[in-house]
């Protein structure tokens, strides 16, 4: 029972990181209208950016977050120009294949330059553990939860209250209408894509702190989890995607209570496939959606 409760705590804190990845993913998909395979690689680059900052400049979480954000923002620009910019009118499989190519490119270059092996992430948060009754909550988990909540709130404020945010929403909903209203759709799509990538980069930093390791190939399964979470949330809805992330975090951690940690990913994907069978539109049942 104790073990189960603590796995729930672990599930929530890990789910919070997945939620951040999923929020980023749904922003990207919403604004470009195209599915991407590069998300995992963006997450990985975000993790490595902060890794090198911690190594060479110092153990400062805020600095790490900024570094991850900037590095993945730049990567987001690269991805945008390679995979999306010229393909908005083309059949969607073309940009899909392009993102596969870009993801192969980034991952393999990373393997060459960062090395193929796991690296230990520096321990930048004290190893303190608080006990509340039978529950054990580590300082790291608290820091992660706070970071995710703050970032999600900033994003929500940005999307709902700023001019750029409103433009982003307009482009997500209907590119043609946005264009007719005089919005620069391409520029907005690029910025939206970069914001989504930036959030993913920070999530990469958090997940590598959580596991205390990072690796050039870590993007593969993380990207899939981001995708799974946002499918659960109906793909473009940031709030429901966040919920999806939490759900996957919980499922994974509860799943390994009945087996071993090496089956972690099997639970995540098994869950995704189950959801696709039972409720393909995700949590959010959308009204008036074009059903074609």
């Amino acid at each position: 029972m104790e073990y189960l409760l603590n796995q729930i705590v672990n599930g929530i804190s890990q789910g919070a990181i997945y939620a951040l990845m999923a929020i980023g993913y749904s922003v990207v998909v919403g604004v470009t209208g195209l599915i991407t395979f590069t998300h995992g690689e963006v997450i990985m680059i975000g993790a490595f950016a902060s890794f090198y900052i911690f190594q060479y400049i110092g153990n400062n979480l805020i600095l790490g977050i900024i570094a991850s954000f900037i590095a993945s923002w730049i990567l987001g620009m690269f991805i945008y120009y390679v995979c999306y910019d010229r393909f908005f009118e083309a059949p969607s499989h073309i940009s899909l294949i392009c993102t596969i190519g870009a993801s192969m490119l980034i991952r393999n270059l990373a393997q060459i330059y960062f090395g193929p092996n796991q690296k230990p992430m520096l321990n930048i948060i004290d190893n303190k553990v608080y006990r509340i009754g039978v529950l054990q909550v580590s300082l790291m988990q608290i820091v992660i939860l706070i970071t995710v909540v703050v970032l999600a709130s900033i994003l929500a404020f940005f999307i709902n209250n700023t001019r750029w945010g409103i433009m982003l929403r307009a482009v997500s909903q209907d590119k043609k209408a946005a264009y007719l209203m005089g919005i620069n759709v391409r520029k907005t799509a690029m910025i939206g894509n970069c914001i989504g990538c930036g959030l993913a980069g920070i999530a990469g930093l958090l997940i590598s702190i959580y596991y205390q390791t990072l690796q050039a190939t870590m993007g593969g399964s993380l990207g899939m989890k981001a995708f799974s979470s946002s499918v659960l949330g109906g793909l473009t809805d940031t709030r429901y995607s966040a919920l999806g992330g939490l759900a996957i975090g919980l499922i994974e951690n509860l799943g390994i209570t009945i087996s071993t940690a090496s089956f972690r990913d099997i639970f995540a994907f098994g869950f995704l496939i189950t959801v696709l069978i039972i409720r393909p539109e995700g949590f959010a049942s959308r009204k008036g959606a074009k059903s074609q």
Partner: protein
Amino acid sequence: MKVLLEAKNVSKHFGGLKAVDNVDMVIYEGDIFGIIGPNGAGKTTFFNLCSGVFPVTGGEIYFNGENITNLRPDIIAKKGMARTFQNIKLFNYMSVLENIKIGFHIHSRTRMWDAILHTSVYKRDEKLAEEKGMEIIERVGLKDYKDILAGNLPYGMQRMVEIARALALDPKLLLLDEPAAGMNPNETMALMEFIKKLNHEGYTIAVIEHDMKFVMNTCNRIMVLNFGKKICEGDPEYVRSNKEVNEAYFGKGIVVQGGTM
């Protein structure tokens, strides 16, 4: 007369928008049934409901005495309802003949083994598609274009190819969504004649059209939709003289909707 297609209280809502609102309609065997109405009246949506593209929000649809509400489009097609699309949906990168060959899908039954071993079933199917396909192409007057990619033809011809492809299904009921759009006056005239000829040969046809002359001259019964509701139904004379129809198209003094009459 035998009822072929019957809609009972059919509705379709998109969120708050009532695209089709409680429409009752009967098409008898042998009809050329016209559906008219201003832009956005719900005509295409109504066709989509009949052919199974969307599920209905309410109501029931009967085809040939059978309840076909919410069945899949391919099942409805197999039951004998073929259609064309307002925004032409040809296989643009296939030749005209190949397009029509796919129309014979429901009349052939080649299995994987038949295809691999070239059994008699395979040979029969290929022969049928090839020969009957050419027959239909000749009938719509596109013999010289059979090997041209469908997407490279002018609009008017593309519409004819789409009709030809639908005919390959040998349907009991043919739904045409604005078949004359994009055609020049000569082509439109020819299309009118062609539709009448098909009707003589025994096809029942339902057609959505904006061109009033077209509808008045070809259809024997007409239904008028406005804002998703049926506002009038009857023979061309009756519809022409109906006050509500004129209001729907021209508004009460002001032009409300961009109807092209």
